[in-house]
């Protein structure tokens, strides 16, 4: 079994198609909605955890792209600038998935991109702007 957290961006022209239904029924993908933001008639953003056989997940993602859904694999999208990060821990106050977590007792901050759901709160919380990437809220993007 493979599991990937993805951000799906549905532009206006495809917003109301039953794409996720087909992803589940035709590709056998188990999905878990982690976050969703829908601006009616403008754009929809959806963060899903996709799991299934590795082959099926890959096929599912190809299907989404064929339907013109913009697919961002979150583990590849959020980035920490190691030079900027000072290991203060402010990001861990807001990270809900422990993608940013403290190693004890060194108190160093570890980043686990595969746990990230790109909520973007770390970008807001980081005092030295060490975090960057794509997120469900446009405002948090840098």
């Amino acid at each position, binding site marked *: 079994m493979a599991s990937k957290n993805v951000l799906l961006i549905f532009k206006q022209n495809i917003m109301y198609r039953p794409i996720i239904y087909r992803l589940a029924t035709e590709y056998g993908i188990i999905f878990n909605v982690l976050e969703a933001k829908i601006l009616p008639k403008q754009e929809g953003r959806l963060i899903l955890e996709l799991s299934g056989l590795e082959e099926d997940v890959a096929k599912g993602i190809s299907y989404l792209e064929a339907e013109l859904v913009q697919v961002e694999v979150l583990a590849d999208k959020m980035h920490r600038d190691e030079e900027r990060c000072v290991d*203060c821990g*402010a990001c861990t106050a*807001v990270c809900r998935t422990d993608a940013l977590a*403290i190693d004890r007792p060194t*108190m160093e901050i570890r980043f686990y991109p595969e746990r990230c759901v790109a909520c973007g709160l770390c970008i807001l919380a980081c*005092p030295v*702007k060490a975090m960057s990437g794509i997120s469900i809220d446009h405002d948090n993007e840098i």
Partner: protein
Amino acid sequence: MDSIPIQRSYEEINDKIKQGKAVILRADEMTELVASEGVKSAFKKVDVVTTGTFGTMCSSGAFINFGHTRPKIKASNVWLNDVEAYGGLAAVDTYLGAAQVQDDDPLNKVHPGQFRYGGGHVIEDLIAGRPVKLRAKSYGTDCYPLREYETTVTIRDLRDAFLYNPRNAYQNYNCAVNLSKRTIYTYMGILRPNMANATYSSAGQLSPLLNDPYYWTIGVGTRIFLGGAPGVVSWRGTQHNPDVPRGENGVVREGAGTIAVTGDMKEMSAEFIRGASLVGYGCSLMVGLGIPIPILNEDLARFTGVSDRDIVCQVVDYGIDYPNAINRTLGEIRYAELKTGMIDVQGKSIPAAPLSSYPMAVKVAENLKLWIRERGFILGVPQVHLPTTHFMAP
């Protein structure tokens, strides 16, 4: 200040440092030594304990003299990268505050504002050697006729650049929670409603003033690590207050002592001085600061042996109480508990996150240790003591 018993003098310690024979430990290492061997043995073995902290300290800033122009200007308004600096000083002197926000920043008009660039960032840029745009205005005088001046400078072009921080290294600080029903954006970070999380900001057992709770060795003239360069304690800090509740070990249970510090920015490193943006709150400066504590007597060995288990802070609500100046504590928490990442407040278990960097604090204390050991960094004898309170031996 009451005179303290001296079992080992500054002269003795400085002689040992010059001869390369001084024994120096970081405060966290001293904690382990005192725990395993006891105070008497630790006193006999150790000459100096180095402390460190690295956190956001808003009461920071820089005195800059940008050198006389031709013709001369009496700069009354000054901007560095469009961040206004105070010009009400002699001709080309100016003071840049860390919390000053760049002109035209939207501030909190769309809440929470991001405060991307301010005085703290200019200070970091200067120390990193990056070019900075300097702009000055004047009304013109017979001796200083120039009315406008604009140029690009790096720190090398500046006549003087001194970090002058009126309040740093707070001896202990609050643990913040939010009892209101909305998310708040504070200088203590992002706090979720209904007390869903907590933040704290102290290096605890490594923190300078928590290791010398009565300021016996930290006073005006104490030589310190400031932003990667040697600096000094220049006065007591603003809001310095020794008269707060203390534990049996003498350690303050809430914010208490503070220090004003000074150092030469031209010698500093941007690794230890960082501009900071606090969402919804403003701009600031992260400062790396360390103080060596001479172990003059057994009490100082015991003080520097303090552990996170023996230091408490107050849990304060930043949703309703703090902004309304309601002095109320929701309880006391030990740093050892805070550092586990989960704390219990009024029967509720909540996650706690640090805002000051412990790994950087260790780095500061370690650097200071190396300076003393390998570069003969001599300890300064305080010339004026900070206001303190009577020490009751337990």
